[in-house]
């Protein structure tokens, strides 16, 4: 086995009519394999995945340094927060509290009061979700600003290529027919029904909108993130006015990040539902086996 077998498997994938025998290859014989993702899409996808993962984890560590969000130009402990996470002693016990507007939630164990290396600790986000796991604003900022550059460089390469090669127009921009099919596509997604045959060879309309949406969201992360920099604010004061003030920008940065996390969760769920092996392989090798009509 080994090298020989994997070469045979590969040729079966690329060329469904190749003469490989055996039960596995027989099943694949009339399976159509297309080249779905170019090298550039695959490379930028994985760099982006790692980067977003690190940006979210380090962002949550940074958030922990001042776990309160406000609206407007200013906001400190004397101002009224929209959201705040804190530990509170009541009746001899400490509870983690998350306050959102007028509502408060007991989030002991996760937000406000959680275990770090076996010890109960007052911290907004728990150790298992932040990068680094221990509370360190300076270190988290180093990671965040290093990978912000990676995010920008990777994003620019992807965007420039997507626009120049027609990937954006061809694969992402929804057609008029796509837009008309939105209600049906929503219904299909809710019933966890995935396109097969010819329809599976192109991104469906919700996919297109989700990918365009997450590109816009990352753009929003970048803009709101830059607006937090006092240097950039001096360079472009209109930016912070547009966003409603620095603390509004910080809140929006957090809201957009939450939406990115939501995208990732739905994205991963869809990968699992659509066939994790085929989907992950297509993002690694580029080759995608088209699901048959009555699979």
């Amino acid at each position, binding site marked *: 086995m080994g090298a020989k077998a994997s070469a045979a498997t590969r040729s079966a994938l690329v060329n469904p009519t190749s003469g490989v025998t055996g039960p596995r290859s027989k099943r694949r014989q009339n399976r159509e394999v297309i080249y779905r993702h170019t090298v550039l899409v695959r490379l930028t996808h994985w760099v982006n995945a790692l980067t977003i993962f690190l940006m979210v984890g380090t962002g949550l560590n940074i*958030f922990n340094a001042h776990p309160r969000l406000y609206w407007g*130009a200013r906001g400190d402990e004397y101002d009224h927060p929209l959201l705040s996470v804190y530990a509170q002693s009541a009746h001899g016990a400490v509870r983690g509290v998350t306050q959102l507007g007028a509502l408060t939630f007991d989030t002991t164990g996760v937000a406000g009061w959680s275990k770090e290396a076996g010890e109960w600790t007052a911290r907004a986000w728990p150790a298992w979700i932040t990068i*680094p*796991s221990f509370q360190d*604003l300076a270190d988290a900022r180093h990671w965040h*600003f290093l990978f912000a550059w990676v995010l920008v460089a990777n994003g620019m390469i992807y965007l420039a290529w997507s626009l120049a090669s027609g990937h954006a127009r061809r694969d992402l921009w929804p057609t008029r027919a796509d837009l008309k099919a939105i209600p049906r596509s929503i219904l299909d997604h809710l019933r966890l029904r995935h396109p097969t045959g010819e329809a599976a060879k192109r991104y469906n309309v919700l996919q297109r909108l989700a990918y365009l949406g997450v590109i816009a969201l990352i753009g929003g992360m970048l803009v709101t993130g830059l607006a937090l920099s006092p240097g950039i604010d*001096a360079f472009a004061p209109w930016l912070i006015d547009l966003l409603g003030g*620095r603390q509004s920008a*910080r809140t929006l940065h957090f809201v957009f990040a939450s939406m990115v996390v939501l995208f990732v969760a739905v994205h991963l769920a869809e990968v699992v539902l659509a066939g994790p092996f085929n989907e992950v392989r297509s993002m690694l090798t580029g080759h995608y086996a088209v699901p048959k009509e009555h699979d």
Partner: protein
Amino acid sequence: MSPVSRRTALFGALTGSGVLLGGCARIFGADQLTGSEAFRRVSDVAQSWTLHTQRFLLSDGAMAKEYRLSDLSPVFKANGTINPGGDDYARAAADAFANWTLRIDGMVARPMSLSLAELRRLPSRTQITRHDCVEGWSAIGQWTGVPLGLLLKAAGVAPGAKYAVFHCADDLDGEPDKGGQQAPGRYYESIGLVDAFHPQTIIAYAMNGRPLDIAHGAPLRLRVERLLGYKHAKYVQRVQLTDTLAGIGAGRGGYWEDRGYDWYAGI
């Protein structure tokens, strides 16, 4: 797919992404990497890109936004040292800092010492600006003081000088709950000459129309509006012009810089 396996798949993906995110610091070895020399070197490169990009964008001397009186924080959060304590400072505070002097020395043609009264007689600038703490909060205050550039011009900056270092009267204990090097130390800060000569960079002696109070840095503090709060040294006693930060504190340019924070605080 049967409904059960669909539900399992969905649930699996959602918890999977949670678990993936959770423990991520361990999966990627991020905790170990964080303290390493290699990581510090790479992150220093990113810091220098940020610095050079912002220096380029701000090369026309762009000003930080100024606000109106109605925007002032009702209570301006006092952070870091809120009272330096000690006999010398307590005595100085007791006679309203009448004998406090600001010394300007190092790489200057004419080292000088100025009393608080002398500083108050010099041309001043008043500005209402937003103070952005590295932790994430912002407060708005009105500051009055002498433009640092005016003082430096009077002292005559020697060719080759690169930094203005601010020596302060307070010791700080660091952030024992936040990791890093946390030995107590004397507060100090440094900025480049581009920021030192910026018109909004002032040695402030008044806040919100009153003499600066102890919690906010009495009698003198730095305001350097295009940088984060930790750069705005309080209780300033001496401004030293130098061509190197080596040999001052731990050599990284400031109290917080010596404890892991970036020297360039425009982000």
